[in-house]
């Protein structure tokens, strides 16, 4: 006969309410673990999808995602010439926040090295990859854009030609793919007045120097478009990514590129470590702290309820001892209730999570090893929570029955 189950049936209201409470707390603990997994997934998703072997970024920086990186676009050609490199592509990546349909729209702008790369590697759920050099984009569904919808960014209007799902940047913002030149245009878009003021300022600076005074044509050049002025730096990109030929050792190529004084090269694994070690680590520790606190709270709540359920039964426990019940029967009564509470709470947490987690704004990934680990923790806290009640029950003397 299972005394624990029969007692629970008798005190079902309190047991059910406590179990629901524990279940909700465990769902949050489970969800926080899932958010952490989601952060990792999102942080390295793009690195994985781009499928490069080496990332070349601005010297002594940890770009392009962990921090800002600026390198000349010409580096794409320089890297292509390194022995063992199969292809080399510029990468433009930056986050923007604009107004669209009266709401803030935050997205990670990714530039593709058109025409070598039209984004055919991007897993689309609707539409097609980019089909022309300008004014087309593919967008993640999390951005809320529809296929065929037009979006004004800077001075240009872009049409959504393809949709992805679950493709987000390291901060959880949806990815939008453009050609690299469009991505740069979006990044460096400035109002016409600002551009005119900058040209006028350039003309003033040249006019104030002897070179401008002896070469009047130089004044016209200085006040013209930027790309007509050789002295100004060409457009810059975030990084250049390389794919190596089969059999080529990544470390050998990195060693070659590392000899260049203006850039730093990382393998894909190193790039992931930069993201995980920097951006994700603090979130991991923060979530970890919350999880520990919630587990402690769950344990205390379980212990209190089990203790009060035990207090309610002290007379019955004394009676059981009087008629000769072994300690194992008494311990089993309390411990089984604790384990049942933990197991039902855990099951409830998992079940509720199936409905709640997909509605979270950030990706929540619940993995089997995490579920197993949490199961182990629930087992441990159930045992721990029952100790107070068991200690009390063990101290009860059988002659307490006579006290009425």
């Amino acid at each position, binding site marked *: *006969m299972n*005394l624990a189950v*029969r*007692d629970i*049936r*008798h*005190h079902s209201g309190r047991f059910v309410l406590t179990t629901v409470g524990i279940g909700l707390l465990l769902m949050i603990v489970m969800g926080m673990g899932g958010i952490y997994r989601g952060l990792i997934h999102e942080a390295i998703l793009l690195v994985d999808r781009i499928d490069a072997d080496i990332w070349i970024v601005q010297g002594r920086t940890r770009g392009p995602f962990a921090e800002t990186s600026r390198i000349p676009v010409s580096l794409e050609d320089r890297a292509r010439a390194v022995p063992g490199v199969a292809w080399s592509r510029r990468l433009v990546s930056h986050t923007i926040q604009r107004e669209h349909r009266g709401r803030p729209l935050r997205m990670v702008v990714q530039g593709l090295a058109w025409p070598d790369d039209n984004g055919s590697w991007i897993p689309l759920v609707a539409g097609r990859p980019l089909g022309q050099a300008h004014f087309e984009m593919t967008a993640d569904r999390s951005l809320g854009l529809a296929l065929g919808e037009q979006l004004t960014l800077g001075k240009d209007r872009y049409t959504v030609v393809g949709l992805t799902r679950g493709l987000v940047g390291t901060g959880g913002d949806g990815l939008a793919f453009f050609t690299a030149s469009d991505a740069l245009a979006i990044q460096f878009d400035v109002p016409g007045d600002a551009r005119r003021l900058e040209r006028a300022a350039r003309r003033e600076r040249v006019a104030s120097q002897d070179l401008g005074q002896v070469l009047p044509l130089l004044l016209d050049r200085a006040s013209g478009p930027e790309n007509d002025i050789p002295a100004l730096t060409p457009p810059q990109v975030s990084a250049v990514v390389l794919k190596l030929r089969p059999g080529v050792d990544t470390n050998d190529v990195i060693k070659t590129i590392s000899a260049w004084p203006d850039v730093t090269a990382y393998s894909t694994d190193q790039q992931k470590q930069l993201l995980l070690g920097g951006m994700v680590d603090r979130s991991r520790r923060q979530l970890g702290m919350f999880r520990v606190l919630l587990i402690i709270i769950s344990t205390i709540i379980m212990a209190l309820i089990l203790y009060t359920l035990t207090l309610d039964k002290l*007379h*019955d426990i004394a*009676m*059981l*001892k*009087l*008629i*000769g*019940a*072994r300690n194992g*029967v008494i311990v089993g009564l309390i411990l089984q209730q604790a384990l049942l509470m933990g197991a039902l709470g855990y099951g409830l947490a998992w079940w509720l999570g199936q409905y709640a987690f997909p509605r979270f704004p950030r990706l929540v990934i619940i993995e089997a090893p995490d579920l197993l680990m949490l199961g182990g923790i629930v087992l441990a806290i159930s045992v721990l929570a029952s100790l107070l009640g068991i200690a009390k029950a063990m101290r009860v*003397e*059988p*002659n307490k*029955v*006579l006290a*009425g």
Partner: protein
Amino acid sequence: MNSLAADRPAILAESLTKTYGSGNTEVIALRDVTLKVQRGEVVALLGPSGAGKSTLLTAIGLINPPTSGRIHIGGHLVLDGPHPAVDLRAFRRKHLGFVFQRANLIPFLSALENVQVAMEINDVTPRAAKQRARELLEYLGVGDRASHLPEELSGGQQQRVAVARALANEPGLILADEPTAALDSHRGRQVMELFAKVSRERQAAVLVVTHDHRALDVFDRTLEMEDGRLRESAPSSITPATQH
């Protein structure tokens, strides 16, 4: 048949004393009490409140050891002064049955389960325990209430279930502390007669602390306690006026 040896007294208590507190607050509850009860004997223990009846009963019931003296049950030395000579809880489980003024049924178990649990903790298989519990409840006239929780039973029915639980493991000794106090006279007499019947049929010794004089004729012997001392008395010599 019961669980104790047939050729030994069910209870042999020798020179029991029990002292509570010390110094100015010392109270002597038992003074050199010696008691012998044979198997199949039904004995009433009478006396005013505070005379030491319950102390003696709980000492023999192995839940309140004496300060000195020895207790043998069924020929086994079980307590030598306050020191147990056997595993007391295991001994209670196998050889003793208890009935109290309140039925003390476990509230979350049905009548059947209250009886069944006493056997299961004595390693009887659940199936056999259930079968025997049902038989006992039928024997005590509450078979039709087997599936009811204690709160759904009358006081008399609860006490019958408690008696059934006390009989569950066929103990050699049944100890009852004012088992009829919460019952009307008719029900009280029924319970006392039940003890006598059980004692006759199962050769169990029954020691009953009682204030109820209306059923003293049921007992084989009556003992009286006063100021911690025990003396034997004939049932006719006990008058209601001397009782509390």
